[in-house]
Every structure is written in C-alpha cells, then in structure tokens.
C-alpha cells in the first residue's frame, strides 16, 4: 500500500499534472493534424523530456500518444483524412456516418471507446506485467538473447512489405547500435576516428531524423490546404453513444483484448491493431453487409483496439525492455538516458516508478474524454493551421531539439543524414519499425549473445539447454522458417503469374 501512496504522491503533483495536461493538448493537436503521427509527436517530445524527471517524462509521452491516437479520428470523420495511420482502418466508415448526418455520434463513440480500450489495456498491463516480471527474474542471458531476437523476428513478421527489406532494415539498426565502445572488451568500433562517435550514435537526433524529418520531407513537397470543417454540436456528441456502446459491448471487449495483445507484439502498433480488429469484428458481426455504409460497429471495435494497443505495447517494454512498438522504442531510449534500464528488476527495485506509470495511464485515458470533446469542438481552428506555416516551424523545432540534448551541432548532422537515408529507404518500402527496434535492442542482444557464447564456450546447443530458453529458441526458429517459406512461396507465385498463359 505504501508503494501505491508513494506513486500517488509522485503523479499527483501540480508540476506533473500540468505536464500531463500540456502534453495531452499537444498530443491532440499532433494527432488531429493529418501528416503528423503519434510516433513523430513522441520523437519531437524527447528533447523536452530530456530536461524532466522520469515520471513527468513518461507521463508526457503516455498522455501525448494516448490523445494523438484518439485525435487521429477527428479529421478522419470530418474530412475523410486520417490524422494518424491508426485511424485509417475506419476513416471511410466514419465519413459515411458524416454523410448520414451522424458525425457527432461517430466522434462521441470514438472518444468513449478509445478510453475504454485504453483502460482495458492498462488493466491487462497492471495485472500481467508484474506477474511476468516475477517469472522472468530467473531468466539468464540465454533467455534474454532469445527474447530480444524473438521480438525482432516478430517485428519483421508483422511489418508490411518484403521480409528481405525488413531484415535489411533491422541490420541497419543493429549496425548503428554497434557504433562506439563495444560491450565485450571496451574497444572503439566503427567510429571513423571521430571523437563524437565514441559514445555511440545519439538517440535523440536519430529518432527525430527517422520519424520527423522523413515526415516533413514527404509532406512538404505536396502541401495541401485542408477542406473546411463542418460545424459540430456538442449536445449530439453524447446522445446515443451509451446505447451504441452497450449494444456492441462484446465487440469492444474482444477488440480491446485483441488490441492489447497486438500492441504487446514487438513491431505491431496501434495501426495494425485497428486494421485487424476491424476485420475480425466484421467477420463476427451479425450484419457484416452494413460495414462500409456508415455502420458504428466497426468504429466501436477498431477505435477501442488502437488505444488498447498503446497500453499493450508497455507490457514487453516494462517487463523485458523490449519495445512493443515504435513509441515504446522511443520511451526506452528516454528511460536509458535517465539511467533506468527497463526489465524485471525495475519491478523489484523501483515499484514506485512502475505504479506511477500505471497511474499516468489511467489518468491520461480518463482526461482524454473532456479534452477530446473540447478538441472536436475546436477542430475547425486546429485543422485550420496552414501546413505551409506548420512544417517549417516543426523543422526548426527538430533542429533545436537535436542540438539541445548534447549541445553539439554534430547531432544536427546525424539527424540530417539519418533523416535523408530513412526517407529514401521508406520511399522504397523498407519499413522503419524494425530499424528503430534493432537500434534500441542492439546492445541488449549483443551483450546477452556474447555472455552466452562465452558461458557455452561456443556450443550453440547450450542456447537451447534451459526449458524457457529452449522454448523461446524453437519459437524464434519456427518464425524464421515461416518467414522463409512465405517469401519463397510469394516468389514462386509471382513467377507463375509472370508466365503468360
């Protein structure tokens, strides 16, 4: 109980609450403006969290992303343009509701379902994470090695596009993580004689380059002004919401749990959770023919799933230090900078921190409702910000952000190079999620791999000698087998299709 009160004390401080409120508003704006994603919003927050204590820093990221994922629904329903990729699954459905004059009902349902999904995700996190952490206290380097490799393998499996490109993206991340002092003997690796690189490649400029500069480059070429936003009435936002939610309560529960599980898979985030839940709910629906015509059932399911995924991603993040999505990959980077290494020991040594994170989640999901309703009412102003003004200012913010953490212009070069390379890679269907996951997990994988190799004296069979490590190892190898078979089959199918009849 003491731990609970101490967590309460850490969260319910005026400065922390103010940061949560400020980040929530920031998250709403980022999420509502098409082109700015929740991951980009998080990357832009990192330089500021650098100057905060751990709890407010995590609070800022959690509340900003919770809001951003909901806020993505606003332009989706009003303008048929999803604010973030996580809302794309049901943008058409929500827009069809607007055509029927039910836009307020769609948005009201979005905000309440987002809250329910988020809270279910937190509940799973609160119940499961400490249990798994306790179990994993007996893990050795073998288990950690396999867990991290399993995480990266999942990231390849769930990413859209070819497995080869995902794997190559992963190897880039791993190679970047090896720059600097090595974990085995402490020698300098791949520093090209540059003193700035001895400490490794800085995480803040890399993140901003990967997620913000790429986005600016993609959007600035084709600047577009958004169409005018229709008026929204708050009174209509809440009437009928309760009955719709009650009617599809089963679907909400299923989607929230499914979303949490998908979120917990490394590499799969809120957008995949929304697509899968939408498809699953259509499959189980009594009226699947209504999907695509402005039917609330799909919206109810998918909008609870994407917020649930956000919380679900924190399960592997907090328990093993293995990020569940790109946002938690950034969060791990932030925690490491603050001297906290996520893992089961945090649950033992710093239970206050863990409980405070849980509390921040609950708080962020609850305040999402009033702030979300406010945002819908203000949507005309938020969506009215011209992109021609927005993107140059964001770029300036990126430059200062990259510079601020270490006060060095070298980091701005890092951001520029990473941004340009990541832009070209993404334009050619190389997914970025495996790269960022690998960058964060690289040192963990290498350290545990080398420890295991030295312990086993090079005998690879020892990697399978313990029950848990053996199971994890077999599962990982099975995933690789599936990946190889799938890519060979795809190639075969392509070749058969190419042969003219």
């Amino acid at each position: 109980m003491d731990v609970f009160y101490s967590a309460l004390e850490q969260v319910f401080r005026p400065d922390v609450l103010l940061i949560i409120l400020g980040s929530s508003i920031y998250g709403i704006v980022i999420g509502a403006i098409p082109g700015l994603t929740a991951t980009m919003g998080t990357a832009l927050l990192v330089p500021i969290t650098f100057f905060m204590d751990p709890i407010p820093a995590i609070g800022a990221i959690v509340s900003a992303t919770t809001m951003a994922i909901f806020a993505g629904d606003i332009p989706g329903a009003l303008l048929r343009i999803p604010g973030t990729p996580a809302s794309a699954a049901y943008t058409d459905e929500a827009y069809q509701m607007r055509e029927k004059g039910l836009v307020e009902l769609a948005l009201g349902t979005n905000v309440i379902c987002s809250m329910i999904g988020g809270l279910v995700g937190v509940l799973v996190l609160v119940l499961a994470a400490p249990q798994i952490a306790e179990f994993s206290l007996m893990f050795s380097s073998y288990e950690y090695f396999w867990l991290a490799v399993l995480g990266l393998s999942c990231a390849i499996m769930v990413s859209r596009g070819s497995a080869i490109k995902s794997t190559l993206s992963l190897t880039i991340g791993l190679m970047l993580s090896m720059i600097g002092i090595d974990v085995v003997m402490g020698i300098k690796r791949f520093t090209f004689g540059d003193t700035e690189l001895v400490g490794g490649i800085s995480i803040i400029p890399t993140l901003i380059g990967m997620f913000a500069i790429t986005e600016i480059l993609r959007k600035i070429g084709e600047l577009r002004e958004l169409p005018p936003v229709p008026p929204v009435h708050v009174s209509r936002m809440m009437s009928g919401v309760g009955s719709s939610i009650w009617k599809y309560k089963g679907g909400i529960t299923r989607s929230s749990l499914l979303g949490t599980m998908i979120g917990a898979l490394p590499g799969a985030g809120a957008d995949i959770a929304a697509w899968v839940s939408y498809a699953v709910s259509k499959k189980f629906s009594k009226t699947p023919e209504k999907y695509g015509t402005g039917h609330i059932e799909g919206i109810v399911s998918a909008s609870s799933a994407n917020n649930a995924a956000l919380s679900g991603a924190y399960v592997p993040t907090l328990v093993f230090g293995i990020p569940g999505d790109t946002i938690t990959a950034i969060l791990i980077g932030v925690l490491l900078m603050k001297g906290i290494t996520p893992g089961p020991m945090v649950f033992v040594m710093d239970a206050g921190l863990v409980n405070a994170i849980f509390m921040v989640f609950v708080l962020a999901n609850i305040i999402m409702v009033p702030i979300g309703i406010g945002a819908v009412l203000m949507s005309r102003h938020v969506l009215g910000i011209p992109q021609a003004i927005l993107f140059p200012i964001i770029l300036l913010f990126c430059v200062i952000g990259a510079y601020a953490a270490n006060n060095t212009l070298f980091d701005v070069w890092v951001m520029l190079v990473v941004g340009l390379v990541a832009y070209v890679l993404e334009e050619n269907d190389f997914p970025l999620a495996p790269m960022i996951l690998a960058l964060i997990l690289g040192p963990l994988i290498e350290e545990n791999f080398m420890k295991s190799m030295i312990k086993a004296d090079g005998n690879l069979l020892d990697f399978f000698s313990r029950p848990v490590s053996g199971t994890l190892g077999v599962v990982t190898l099975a995933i690789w087998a599936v990946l190889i078979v799938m890519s060979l089959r795809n190639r075969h199918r392509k070749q058969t299709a190419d042969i003219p009849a």
Partner: protein
Amino acid sequence: MKINDALFGIVFVIVASAILITVQSFPTLPDQPYGPATFPTIIAIIMLLGGIALCISGYRERAHQPLIQIAAIMKTRDGLVRMASVPVFMVLYILLSKPVGFPIVVPVLLAAFLTITTRKWLLSVVIAVATTAALWLFFVDFLMVSLPLGILTKVIY
C-alpha cells in the same frame, strides 16, 4: 523517389563487405575466438545475403523497375524547391548558427523558408521573428539550453 532494388542490393553488399573487412583488425578475448568482431560479423553476413537477394530480385524486375524513378512531385519546380529547402535549412543552420548566432540566423532562415512555402513574405517575416522569440524563451530561459549567441556575444557581454 523509387530506386531499383538491385542498386540498394549493391549498396548493402558494399557496406557489409566493408564491415567484414574492418572487423578483421578487432582483437579477440584471451584464449577465445570471440570478441568485439563476433556480433558485427554475423550481422554483416545477414546484410550481405539480404543485399545479394535484393540484387537478384532487382535484376529480375528490371523490366518493370527503372533504375531510378523520380517522384512526380519532385519533377515540379515548386515541389522540388520546397523539399530541397529542408536539407539546405539544416546545413545552413549547422554552418552559421555558431559564428553568426541563433538570434540572427534563425529568423532569416525561417523567414526565407516560410516565404518559399507560403509565398507571403511579410507574413513569413512576422511569423519567423515571433517563432524565434518563443523558442528562445522556451529553450534558453525555461529549459536552460545554451543556444549560440555568435557575434552577439560581444555586443551583450
């Protein structure tokens, strides 16, 4: 900007080979064959194999995939100028912010960039000055980041 897979493949093969050559000079642990080179070697081999696979698929697809295909937006003058402004802005900031100073360089750079995107120079200047002031207050006075004063150092101190 679409680039044929084979070109990517060649780059990956070159990078992987360079890594494999570099790690040859790394030491190993006493009486053990492993050391700082072990992990990079494994990753470089995976990268090499992936690169070769891309070369093959890119070569097979050469009929449908040109070597380099510039995106439609980059072919329009305005689109290209706006996109090129992003790296140019960053490079100029890196080169000029220390010697000249943030409070002088940033409003000029930002106003120029905003003029390119909005085509309204007066509005751009006003926004650039206001944004610089706001960011200065936030980062320097609130977060205590020391942004370079450049030539203003002598004026102020």
